[in-house]
């Protein structure tokens, strides 16, 4: 097995297409699964400066996160804290501080359990697009559902439309203890007009089904409501009624997701009341 440190995105892409190399970012999944991954050549992208960091691009109206940005760097990002607190809160839920110092957002999205860990549900709630070098833009829902992460491209950036003024967002996960992976979680974003009326909303629950899902009935119900007047219970009822057939474990997880949603809705109401989180 050979390891190449990528010199550029093009170099990484060349090794993927010509040599069948697998892309390694932080290296965590590789370390955990050496036996499965040891046979292919590897190309490391974690040091590519061109895909590191968080940038606010006013020309495109997008906030872009480099695929090699660590989850710890996301937690510390002022741009994300100001504009997309949901991504900060979701990144903070992954693993522990040591993991977050090593894990990258791109690696998380390409990992074997990529749909389940908190980054993907939160990105789904903010309508993110995965930019795969060269030249592809894939909505994050499609990416985690179908795209072969070791296909013929290299995940380079994750782009999120910059939220409208007045948008509140957050991520809430319920887990039995700090080291546990969590039972269920909810990500929510609401664009609140100056009148206090919700103009747009996205609600995603994770942990209940195999993949995170948008709860469109809840989104529809939120739009047009006053943020101050949404009872948390009401949101919970909608989420319950949107669920299809679930087995016993699924029903339990659904109830946990409902609790998380009620908690989050209440928190976002108070965030709205006090202005944007600093």
């Amino acid at each position, binding site marked *: *097995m*050979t*390891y190449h*440190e990528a010199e550029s995105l093009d170099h990484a892409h060349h090794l993927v297409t010509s040599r069948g190399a697998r892309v*390694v970012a932080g*290296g*965590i999944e*590789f*370390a*955990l699964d*050496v036996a499965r991954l*040891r046979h292919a050549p*590897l190309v*490391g992208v*974690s040091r590519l400066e061109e895909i590191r960091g968080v940038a606010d691009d006013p020309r495109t109206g997008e906030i872009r996160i480099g695929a090699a940005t660590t989850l*710890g760097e996301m937690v510390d990002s002022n741009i994300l804290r100001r504009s997309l607190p949901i991504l900060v809160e979701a990144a903070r839920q992954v*693993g*522990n*501080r*040591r*993991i977050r*110092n*090593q894990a990258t957002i791109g690696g998380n999205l390409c990992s074997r359990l990529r749909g389940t860990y908190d980054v993907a549900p939160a990105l789904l709630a903010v309508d993110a697009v995965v930019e795969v070098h060269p030249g592809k833009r894939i909505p994050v829902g499609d990416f985690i559902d179908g795209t072969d992460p070791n296909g013929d491209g290299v995940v380079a950036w994750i782009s999120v439309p910059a939220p409208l003024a007045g948008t509140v967002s957050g991520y809430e996960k319920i887990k039995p203890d*700090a*080291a546990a992976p969590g039972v269920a979680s909810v990500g929510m974003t609401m664009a609140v007009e100056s009148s206090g009326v919700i103009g747009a909303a996205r609600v995603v629950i994770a942990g209940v089904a195999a993949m995170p899902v948008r709860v469109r009935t809840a989104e529809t119900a939120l739009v047009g409501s006053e943020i101050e007047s949404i009872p948390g219970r009401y949101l919970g009822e909608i989420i319950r009624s949107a669920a299809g057939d679930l087995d016993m474990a699924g029903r339990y997880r659904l109830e946990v997701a409902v609790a998380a949603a009620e908690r989050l809705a209440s928190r976002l109401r108070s965030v709205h009341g006090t202005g944007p989180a600093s």
Partner: protein
Amino acid sequence: MFGEHGIMSEVAPRGTSHSIELVLNGAQIRADVPADLLLIQLLRDHVGLTGTKNGCGVGVCGSCSVLVDGRLVSACLVPAVQLNGRNVMTIEGAIRVHPAAETVVAAFAASGGVQCGFCSPGQVMAALDFLDRYSTPDRATVLGEFDANLCRCTGYYSIIESVLEAAGRLADAP
């Protein structure tokens, strides 16, 4: 340990080996490592630095906590081949050069933060990282943020006390 020219030659090649150079506890070293060698194996099996403990092997327990370029990571999850040009500090190096290490170790001893000792190197590394970010933490901050190193002996209360004691001693230091 590193040979007379600081070159480490004990790592037997498995498949293709890769030459890496890194700073380990302040000393420049070179090693030839296979791509599947993990940092914890490099440290313990090849360099002989056994202060970094092999616990869960999956990044949960924290007993292999080390600093890479100043960031706390689990050595069991870091492929050694990715360390070319990096700076690695283990408990052995921290004790020698980290300005707060001696105080933190003394605080753990004084507050009963050590019983069997297996988790202690990792606890100390994590405490150094934590106290670097929070110089005057309150108990709630320790409870909320110092939550990722397992201990099967103490029940954690004495470890929380140890971290608070260390913070107090460091704040009082001239």
